[in-house]
């Protein structure tokens, strides 16, 4: 076989694939440009009320002003709270899942509690959390934790339980202890599950943090949004939402990147 020479059919196939990719990208960019442009124009010609719906150019100036003022501080507060809540949620959740996997008795006992806690809208706990840990960063982190914890536990436990039982049987033929079965088979088998749950969790933690910042109202992007709403500065609200969207996407991409590295490490 000659690697340098490609058959005509393959060349055509590759070219058509390349074309489709470019077309998709063109449409994606096009839609964004169209949306921003029509928003701007509609506002310019006073067809929509830019006081309520804001307007791209005003959002732009607002963001520039915010950067000069203390935007970075607010972004950092939100990111920091999210990452702490996320990390705590993942570690605690995974540990709890390990315990439940280890002991089916504990798992059976805790099942109804997990079901109830999972379906409870955790935001309802906000006031309780604030009263217990005080209206500060801790409360916000607890909010993030409350929202992501149970999902992690259930997701990881489900993954652990669905480990190929033949693998486990094979390990036991060598006399593996339960701990060895976990370390050598069950955990590596579930690396993909772990990262799926991380991807869900980074989003959920952010939901918790923003909800917490709404309630606590001291700093962060959630605080900016609530504050902007209260004083009717819609430019500030819109700018913060857009920055939040960017921050959320970046954190998600961060998890995806970590997954790539880990997967290469484990060669999945």
């Amino acid at each position, binding site marked *: 076989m000659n690697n340098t020479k490609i058959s005509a059919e393959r060349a055509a196939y590759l070219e058509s694939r390349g074309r489709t990719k470019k077309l998709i990208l063109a449409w994606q960019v096009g839609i964004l440009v169209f949306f921003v442009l029509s928003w701007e124009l509609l506002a310019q010609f006073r067809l929509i009320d830019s006081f309520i719906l804001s307007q791209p150019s005003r959002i732009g100036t607002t963001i520039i002003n915010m950067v000069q003022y203390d935007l970075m501080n607010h972004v950092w507060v939100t990111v920091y709270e999210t990452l702490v809540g996320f990390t705590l949620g993942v570690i605690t959740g995974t540990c709890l899942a390990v315990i439940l996997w280890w002991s089916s008795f504990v798992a059976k006992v805790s099942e109804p509690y997990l079901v109830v806690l999972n379906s409870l809208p955790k935001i309802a706990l906000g006031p309780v959390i604030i009263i217990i840990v005080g209206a500060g960063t801790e409360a916000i982190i607890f909010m993030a934790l409350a929202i992501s914890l149970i999902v992690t536990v259930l997701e990881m436990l489900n993954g652990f339980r669905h480990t190929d039982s*033949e693998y486990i*049987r094979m390990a036991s*033929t*060598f006399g593996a202890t339960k701990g060895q079965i976990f370390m050598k*088979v069950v955990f*590596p088998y579930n690396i993909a599950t772990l990262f799926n749950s991380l991807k869900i969790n980074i989003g959920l933690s952010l939901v918790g943090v923003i909800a917490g910042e709404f309630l606590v109202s001291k700093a962060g992007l959630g605080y900016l949004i609530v504050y902007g709403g209260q004083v009717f500065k819609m430019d500030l609200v819109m700018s913060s939402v857009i920055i939040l969207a960017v921050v959320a996407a970046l954190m998600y991409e961060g998890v995806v990147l970590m997954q790539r590295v880990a997967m290469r490490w484990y*060669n999945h």
Partner: protein
Amino acid sequence: MDILKVVNIEQKYQAENGEITALKEISFTVKKGEFISIVGPSGCGKSTLLSIISGILKPTNGEVYVSGERVDGITSHIGYMLQKDNLLDWRTIYKNVLLGLEIRNTKTQENMERAENLLKTYGLYEFRDKYPSQLSGGMRQRVALIRTLAISPDILLLDEAFSALDYQTRLSVTDDVFRILKQEQVTTLMVTHDIPESISMGDKIMILSERPAVIKEILEIDFEMETRTPLTCRKSPKFSQYFNHIWRELSGNE
């Protein structure tokens, strides 16, 4: 010297909807280096018997002795190979082969060299850094065998270890495995559904009855050959005699 002695094994399984007696009054002995094929009707208790010998399963009654020592739980003397190769797909071939040693905390320099030599001897050394998904079914099964042999078992238990392979691969893999086992002088008990396979590899064939399984017969196989291999056995005129005998026993004209 009997390397394996099974005394009066009985196994009852308890389930919600009743009790199943899988094995009854099973007693036999195996000499060092012997190859025993075990055949019997579906669901009669063959896998149960191997699980008990391996120590994974505690029998309801009876005892198993390996080299005179009572088996109670998993021992390092026994290697047990299942139908699926169960190679962990996130480990390289070499690391898969070392799994048993890791689990038993016997990953010494000497044992690792032994594993490497096994890979070399059986033509898999150049694949040591590849991953299981990059190997064919026959190669994977050989890797699984090497993983089991790496712990230097005195007795090897094979539970339909080749039944997942296609016929062609199966013939060549059983030929290889037979050579490997004779060379390493491993005593082997092999469960199979394939009568020709049981004859071509076994020194003796244990025929089990319907459940609850008892030993119907232990048939001595002798092809009167200097160096027998599974493939040469299949060509011997005695092969079909043995086949007919086992077939008659299994199709149950009691």
